[in-house]
């Protein structure tokens, strides 16, 4: 308790697992509660895990060069599911070919990511930014953030309920996967 939960994972069909393990160890040592979904994670899985754990941030990795396609619509899906204020970061090998980083960064920001990182980023700096961003969006970071964030959740609730209305009830016997 009293730790901010963050969800991490490698998106799409991407199997690069080494960096993901490092991120888990690093952010845990920085005092976050890390929920690591591993490799080949879909947008839906990131969001499901964030809802159950009341996460403050999702850190998406993409190493294999298809990040742009895999991340399309991520923020929209978060909004759809009622995760409005959640902090969204993306990092890894996002630059393909000779495109300058600033152009790539701009693309991902337009998709709704709050920050975009290159593979050589100093992770200490990322942790600092993350604490700041969580504080900004949720009122406070780490211990004692409970009330504010719960009331934020409160606001999301009605929207989430609305959004899930369509497919949330499964009649017995017609379970589909």
């Amino acid at each position, binding site marked *: *308790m009293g730790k901010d*939960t963050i*969800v991490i994972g490698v998106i799409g*069909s991407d*199997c690069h697992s080494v960096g993901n393990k490092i991120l888990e160890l690093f952010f845990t040592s920085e005092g976050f*509660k890390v*929920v690591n*979904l*591993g*490799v*080949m994670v*879909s947008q839906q*899985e990131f969001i*499901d*895990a964030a*809802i*159950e*754990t*009341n*996460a403050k941030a999702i850190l998406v990795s993409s190493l*294999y060069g298809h990040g742009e396609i895999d991340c399309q619509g991520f923020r929209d899906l978060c909004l759809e599911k009622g995760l409005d204020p959640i902090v969204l970061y993306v990092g890894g090998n996002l630059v393909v070919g000779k495109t300058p980083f600033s152009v790539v960064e701009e693309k991902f920001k337009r998709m709704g990511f709050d920050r975009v990182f290159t593979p050589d980023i100093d992770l200490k700096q990322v942790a600092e930014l993350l604490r700041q961003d969580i504080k900004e969006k949720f009122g406070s970071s780490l211990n004692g953030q409970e009330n504010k964030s*719960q009331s934020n*959740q*409160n606001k*999301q*609730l009605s929207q*989430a*309920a609305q959004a*899930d*209305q369509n497919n*949330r*009830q*499964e*009649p*017995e*016997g*017609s*379970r589909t*996967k």
Partner: protein
Amino acid sequence: MKTVISIDIGSTWTKGAAFALTGSGFELKEKISVPTTQDNLVVGFHETLARLLHQDPLTPLEQLKGLSEIFFSSSAKGGLKIAAIGLVPDLTLQLARLAAMSAGGKVVKSFSFALTGGDVSELEKLNPDIVLFSGGTDGGNSKYILENAKKLQSSRLSCPVVYAGNRAVAEDVLNIMKSREVVVTENLMPEVGQVNIEPVREKIREIFLKRIVAGRGLAEIVDLFGSQPKPTPLAVFELISVIPEFYQDWSDLAVIDIGGATTDFYSNTESYLETDTVVLKGIREPKVKRTVEGDLGLRVSARSLFETGQSYLEDRLREEGFELKEMEEFVDRISSRLDYLAESQTEKILDQILAEACVYYAVLRHSGGWREVYTPQGRVYVQTGKDLRRVKAVIGSGGFLSGEKSTAVMAIPLKKLRNYGEEKKLLPDCPSFYRDRHYLFSVLGNLVEKYPQEAASLAVASVENLSQKGENHD
């Protein structure tokens, strides 16, 4: 030599068996069934016991009591109805459903996210025996939980609520639901993907017992014999849990039981084997798993089976040269008659096709699947749900399958499932088919707690291998 008696009070039949306990284990001496006496279960129980002990049926129960060791189970009227509430459908809700079914219950409805006014009135109408209330990891989401707790508190529901959600707000839930019977247990998903359903199962079992025992005379039997009945599905669950502990050859097995009202499927096999090329998504399901399908059954549920199973039925009827209409008429005839026995050759075939459809949809829902993903370094499989590929033995039990000597009812639907949709289903690779020839599993399950090895031993010895005889329909 000692005699041990086991009696299972089902919704239609009260089945009893007498076993001789010798140095080498159990031996079946006699097996009988009498119609269940719905208003007072003691009457049928008494008759079964007296007959198994070869005593005058008028001998008072107290006098029969000392004559042998007695175990019993009851399915309670129609099984235990559970409404499952979770947060995300693929996470806590999925686990809540699994826990409910593995505890011997029947899930009448599932709800995810926030309950609406409509959901609450539906819950009231369904009038379940238990509401299983979960959601959120420990220290995780609480908003939906507290919101749902308030809705449940102000509802007209009267059944007990088992709370197995975010532990951090368990006390708040108790406070909000002050005027309700709320039993708090461990979170069924303390961390994302971590499965913890044993404590919930235990709590459901306790409530189940209270309910079975209440009314219809069972309390009298409990008082007299000083032991509690077992919920029938739990008895089978325990039997299939214990078999591989004593018999490694039976390490990966599945049991299917088609009844008039429900179809139960049990599996005991590792749900996921980690390899470089298979990635598991969602929760890792438990090794021993039970699912029960309330819309699949041969008599009471024949109508709903006809609707659910339309596409399978059409396909098979065409192959066997029947019209859908003939099946519909047959279904109309049998669905109001609990103990109707198929008479003509045609009816027998129709009955068999219905049973196949029960197998088809029960396995479809119980088993996981995988999707192929092409990555530049080759193919990778993304698995969801339970992998049944290693299952070597599929055993048919229950009134219908125990009497079925051909593999067809199980083998045909499994074969058809191989071509199901785009997702590959993780079905038993090349199973042998067996039948619980004397329909002993439920009565043997009652003995597992006290005589695990002896019960497992007789279960294994009494099944008949159908595959050895080839595919002929005799």
